[in-house]
């Protein structure tokens, strides 16, 4: 066997992991690896800013279910990637970031483009490594992929000093990983699963509350089989949308701050809350003391033991992979006759929730002609043009909540949004990344005039690689969600939330993309149709009134009784 350079070991290791595409940006300390990359079969996407690379990797990971890979250089290249790494950490997104580092002899020397990347990313990665010897490169990359993709997924950083990339060593990619200190629990405890079934069986008003964990573990089929078989309604978190098909009446949509009246009323009244791969985030619970006050039993299935009883006291915890736990639950239920005894009550409970939904629908459409564009019409038209068979990525703000409330997601892995960290600038690059994972799926990015400007430079990437995405900007010349909070909670004092924007059509054209603009409601359908029929990256600037608000709303730290309506 011949010795090869560390940089070649890096590339060979990625190929051995089955990596097909990497998102990155070259620079001094990572140049040896870029040199090796040129001759490899790996596809490399050159971004315009390292943050873009991390969100592309997130979009890729969310759609494919496999870790997204990012390559950046040391110093500023690495620090630019931090926001996307923190985003991936909060939303449990598997990602491997390979970063260049100054040569080992210069580490700690305040060398040119040196940053303590392992130190900086320690609190926002699942794990990170500084590789100090070329003999450790292959094993470390193997461990990085293993850690990123197993258990509760997350980002892993591998910091690679330049001299390590240049040194030579024999290459053998390890067959397996031995980490005595990291062994995620996959199977749920059968006795706990039985206790959970007993609790559900006894309950009169059970409710499933499902989150991103269902998506990551690929557990949507098991979840659907279970709740449909039992006839128990399901509410989804922002990250859980698509776990249940929107067309199923058991699917109640999103709960929490911008959840509907009916859904949140169901949470208030349930006597048995079954949390599945969700983490009781403050945007879901509001004031903890008032969350699910009538729930005699809270069951929590999660792969991460530290999520259990972190915010809300859980009565029946089940630690394990959601897919495996739900499958075991299905098996136990099949051999259990008593499970059907409450069917009639559960059906009545479901009807009651439907009644609440009807009493106060998310938005009242009065059917009157309007001159200005309603954001709701835009979302409806997105559905009409794709029949729902598409991937939707968003940025953060009002547009994000409107899509989450209204777009009828039928499938998991079709919804990309920054939930935990709330990163403006996520949408466009995430949509680009998604297209590399699912080239045949239409990808729509919904953004706002504020968010889009945070990573608009990635239009350049989309054009360079001919990425066919449709970017809709809901443009109200304001940071809309900030404006909404200022209106409701800060006595309409709009402190620095109004924003001038560029001519988005000209900007798109300057990048070599296509641009459209809609100002009047009557032009919406035709323009969107034309834009969606235009191949390649297309930007659609849709002007909406600044007064449009995301409703209903439970004020931050509040409870259902304080819900605000339009």
């Amino acid at each position, binding site marked *: 066997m011949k010795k090869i350079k560390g940089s070649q070991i890096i590339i060979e290791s990625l190929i051995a992991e089955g990596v097909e595409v990497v998102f990155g940006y070259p620079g001094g300390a990572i140049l040896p690896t870029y040199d090796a990359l040129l001759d490899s079969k790996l596809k490399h996407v050159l971004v315009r800013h390292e943050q873009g690379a991390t969100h592309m990797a997130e979009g890729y990971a969310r759609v494919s279910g496999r870790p997204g890979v990012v390559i950046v250089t040391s110093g500023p290249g690495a620090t630019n990637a931090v926001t996307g790494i923190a985003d991936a950490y909060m939303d449990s997104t598997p990602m491997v970031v390979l970063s260049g580092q100054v040569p080992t002899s210069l580490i700690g020397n305040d060398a040119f483009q040196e940053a303590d990347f392992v130190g900086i990313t320690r609190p926002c990665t699942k794990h990170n490594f500084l590789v100090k010897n070329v003999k450790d490169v292959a094993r470390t990359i193997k461990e990085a992929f293993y850690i990123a993709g197993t258990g509760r997924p997350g980002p892993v950083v591998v910091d690679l000093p330049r001299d390590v990339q240049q040194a030579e060593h024999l290459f053998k990619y390890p067959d397996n990983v031995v980490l005595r200190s990291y062994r995620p629990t996959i199977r749920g405890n059968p006795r706990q699963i039985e206790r959970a079934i007993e609790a559900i069986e006894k309950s009169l008003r059970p409710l499933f509350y499902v989150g991103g964990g269902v998506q990551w573990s690929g557990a949507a089929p098991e979840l659907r089989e279970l709740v449909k078989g039992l006839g128990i309604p399901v509410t989804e978190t922002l990250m859980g949308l698509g776990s249940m098909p929107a067309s199923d009446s058991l699917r109640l949509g999103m709960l929490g701050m911008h959840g509907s009246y009916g859904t949140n009323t169901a949470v208030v009244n349930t006597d048995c809350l079954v949390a599945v791969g969700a983490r009781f985030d403050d945007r879901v619970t509001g004031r903890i003391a008032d969350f699910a006050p009538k729930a005699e039993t809270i069951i929590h299935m999660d792969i991460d033991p530290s999520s*259990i*009883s972190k915010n809300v006291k859980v009565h029946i915890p089940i*630690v394990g992979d959601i897919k495996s736990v739900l499958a075991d639950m299905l098996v136990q239920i099949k051999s259990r006759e008593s499970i059907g005894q409450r069917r009639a009550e559960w059906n009545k409970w479901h009807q009651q929730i439907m009644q609440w939904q009807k009493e106060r629908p998310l938005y009242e459409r009065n059917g009157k002609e309007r001159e200005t564009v309603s954001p709701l019409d835009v979302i409806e038209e997105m559905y009409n043009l794709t029949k729902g068979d598409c991937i939707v990525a968003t940025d953060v703000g009002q547009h994000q909540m409107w899509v989450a409330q209204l777009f009828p997601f039928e499938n998991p892995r079709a919804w990309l949004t920054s939930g935990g960290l709330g990163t403006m600038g996520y949408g466009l690059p995430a949509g680009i990344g998604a297209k590399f994972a699912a080239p045949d799926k239409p990808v729509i990015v919904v953004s706002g005039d504020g968010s889009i400007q945070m990573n608009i430079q990635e239009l350049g990437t989309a054009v360079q690689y001919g990425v066919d995405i449709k970017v809709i900007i809901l443009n109200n010349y304001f940071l809309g969600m900030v404006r909404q909070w200022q209106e409701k909670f800060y006595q309409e004092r709009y402190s620095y939330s109004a924003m001038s924007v560029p001519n988005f059509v000209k900007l798109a054209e300057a990048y070599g993309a296509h641009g459209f603009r809609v100002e009047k409601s009557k032009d919406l359908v035709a323009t969107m149709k034309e834009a969606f029929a235009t191949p390649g990256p297309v930007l659609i600037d849709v002007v909406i009134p600044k007064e449009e608000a995301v409703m209903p709303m439970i004020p931050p730290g509040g409870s259902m009784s304080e819900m605000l309506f339009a």
Partner: protein
Amino acid sequence: MTSHTISVLVENEFGVLARVAGLFSSRGFNIESLTVNEDPLDPTVSRIVLVTTGDEQVLEQINKQLNKLIPVIKVIDFKDVDILEREMVIVKISVDERTRSELDSIVSAFRAHIVDIGQRVVTVEVTGDADKIKAFIALVRPLGIKEVVRSGKVAMQRSVQLSAENHRRPREAD
């Protein structure tokens, strides 16, 4: 809010203390005392013994979050078990002809050791639990302490558990 002693077995590798300490600072947990040492029998492993404060829920989170760190092999929470705990202080104390005999009697009562003698100063080493150290310091303080250094705590479960309700092993998280 009570003090708790936790023993954490970790991979003996670069940066692991920063991960443990960083976890405490980023999650707002407190560290009162900390010792870190390579295991004398297995050099691939280090043992961190730390003392922290918090209610039941905080301690449960600390335990779980520690277990979540990749290089953490095992977390032993010494809650509800009888433990042996030791700290050490080295105290440099002023002496003269008048106080020397008083110091000698304190040293002997505490089974401390005189480890260094200079002109008008005596350096004493004391080992014991936190109360013993506290009592010793209180007694020699009037003599005049020139300098004092104190170690963190080390702890180990006692072989025989005397507390009636505590016939149980230390809690180990899954």
